[in-house]
């Protein structure tokens, strides 16, 4: 009501104040030089090169070190080096590549990968869906914190692998117990980081919201949740890593399918190249999933510094 009053007033007498701030020496540097006008292609390319020099350098060095790793691996296996560690039975990179070329046409290998991914998606999503709201509520309401925290502190140090026997007893199917173990692995990192994020919310922002007329529910939605998001995403990234660790362990112990089972089976069947293939597949899947989370984080928090 009164804001429309303000609006009407401004239409009448804006010039007086709008001219003042323009003399203020406080324009952010980034807006002083808008990137307009057309540059000749060469200049643009040169400028792009100058701005991205550091990144190009990092990519180049990364590529070189990867190639060096492969060469060292190749040499160690080619000459079957025995120096404390024995490379006698370790597959060479070329052998692993050959087994990879075979595996991507093999529906059974693909099924192992797909099944592992499905378990991760179920276990991790469930963990996120439970741990994030629980962390938010624990951070806001003392009573819930006081009730849940002691229990979670006792359960938290138990590694997910130690849950394997209990999980098998608890759940009717093998599949469910593996998903349960994946869930447990990612649950605590997400919960702890969400709680940490809640504890760091700037009280001035809460007071600012209160003095603008916000009530409890709005403060929760508009202040506490977005303020904790950076830590929630740290928790999700860490949780995703632990989810893979727990999943692979569970698959190796009790699984029938999945990439962890594939790797363990390869050892039993003396298919050494497949062991390395399984390991690399796990590494790549873990990398891709954490990149995905980082991407979602960037989309969800457009305000952060890039």
């Amino acid at each position, binding site marked *: *009501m009164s804001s429309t009053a303000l609006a009407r007033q401004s239409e009448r007498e804006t010039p007086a104040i709008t001219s003042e701030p323009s003399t203020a020496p406080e324009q952010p540097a980034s807006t002083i030089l808008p990137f307009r006008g057309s540059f000749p292609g060469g200049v643009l390319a040169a400028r792009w090169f100058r701005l991205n020099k550091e990144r190009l350098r990092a990519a180049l060095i990364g590529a070189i070190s990867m190639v060096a790793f492969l060469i060292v691996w190749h040499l160690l296996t080619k000459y079957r080096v025995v120096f404390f560690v024995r490379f006698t039975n370790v597959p060479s990179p070329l052998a692993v590549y050959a087994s990879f070329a075979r595996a991507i046409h093999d529906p059974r290998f693909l099924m192992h990968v797909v099944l592992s991914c499905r378990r991760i998606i179920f276990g991790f999503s469930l963990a996120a869906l439970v741990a994030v709201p629980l962390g938010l509520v624990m951070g806001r309401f003392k009573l819930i914190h006081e009730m849940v925290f002691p229990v979670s502190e006792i359960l938290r140090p138990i590694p997910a692998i130690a849950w394997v026997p209990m999980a098998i007893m608890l759940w009717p199917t093998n599949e469910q117990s593996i998903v349960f173990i994946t869930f447990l692995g990612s649950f605590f990192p997400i919960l702890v980081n969400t709680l940490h994020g809640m504890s760091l919310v700037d009280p001035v922002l809460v007071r600012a919201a209160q003095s603008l007329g916000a009530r409890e529910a709005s403060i929760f939605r508009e202040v506490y949740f977005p303020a904790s998001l950076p830590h929630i995403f740290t928790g999700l990234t860490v949780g995703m890593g632990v989810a893979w660790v727990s999943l692979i362990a569970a698959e190796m112990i009790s699984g029938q399918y999945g990439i962890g089972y594939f790797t363990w089976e390869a050892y039993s069947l003396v298919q050494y190249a497949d062991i390395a293939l399984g390991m690399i597949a796990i590494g790549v899947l873990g990398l891709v999933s954490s990149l995905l989370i980082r991407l979602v984080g960037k989309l969800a928090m457009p*305000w952060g510094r890039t």
Partner: protein
Amino acid sequence: MSLIEAKATQGHVEVKNFALSYETIDGAVAAVTDTQIQVKPGEFVSIVGPSGCGKSTLLNAVAGFLKPTAGTVTVDGEEVKRPSAERGMVFQQYSLFPWKTVRENVEFGLKMRGMERSRRERAARTLLGLAGLEAFEKHYPDRLSGGMKQRVGIVRALATGPKVLLLDEPFGALDAQTRVIMQQILTNMWQRLKISVLFVTHDIDEAIFLSDRVYCMTAAPWTEAAKRFMEAMTARPGSIKAEIPIALERPRQQSMMMSSEFLGLKRGLMSLIREESLKAMGGEITDLGMQGLNIDLHGQSLADVL
């Protein structure tokens, strides 16, 4: 128009027999005692005093963040019980929501009131235009300078059309040049909107330049009882020591700060605060401390002496 004129009859802040103390292990520690202030509708009033004198505590009680231990705080005869959009607040720390753009920050109070999106967007744009910030409506606070952040903070507090604007050392973190410009912007907005302002600062120049009336607040001198508990007592209760009307004509110009009238007021206030501060620091600056201040180094550097 009628709404704006009507406003000048609103926003009568009265603080009567006010006292506020905190509970500690050694008993209650008084932060503010025996304080009466008032802000008449449309008046610009400052509270000036050294840091730790309790002026922010008093302001926070008017905002509704703290409850008085004794006495009453009323706005237009209604007792202040909790923070509300009726009393807009600007904090010393930048308190913009980092996850909201400049315009979304300004819209916040209107959103809390349940105003529909298109209307509040329009209102926010108009207000930002009033402060010369229209070009930055889509920026995140992260990219603004300190002065601009505080300008947005003031606009945000004004957006809901409050009866009173409370400012807690809003320009304390700004450089001297920006501060002068911000003071002019604030007086300009105050004159157009005709709302009551309660402004807390430790800067005497600022208080005189902006206000119709200045309250001088200092911590109480050390009593014998207080001295005995010196270790436990870090704060002494503050109270209003003087009330000085500022009869300088409006609109005020920068050049007035050199006028004899202004300098006279400044000299008076400075000596008042100095006198009270010295009295109050009686427990801190002991005779030995005073002797230390009088040691003559005979032109040697400190390193030579040591």
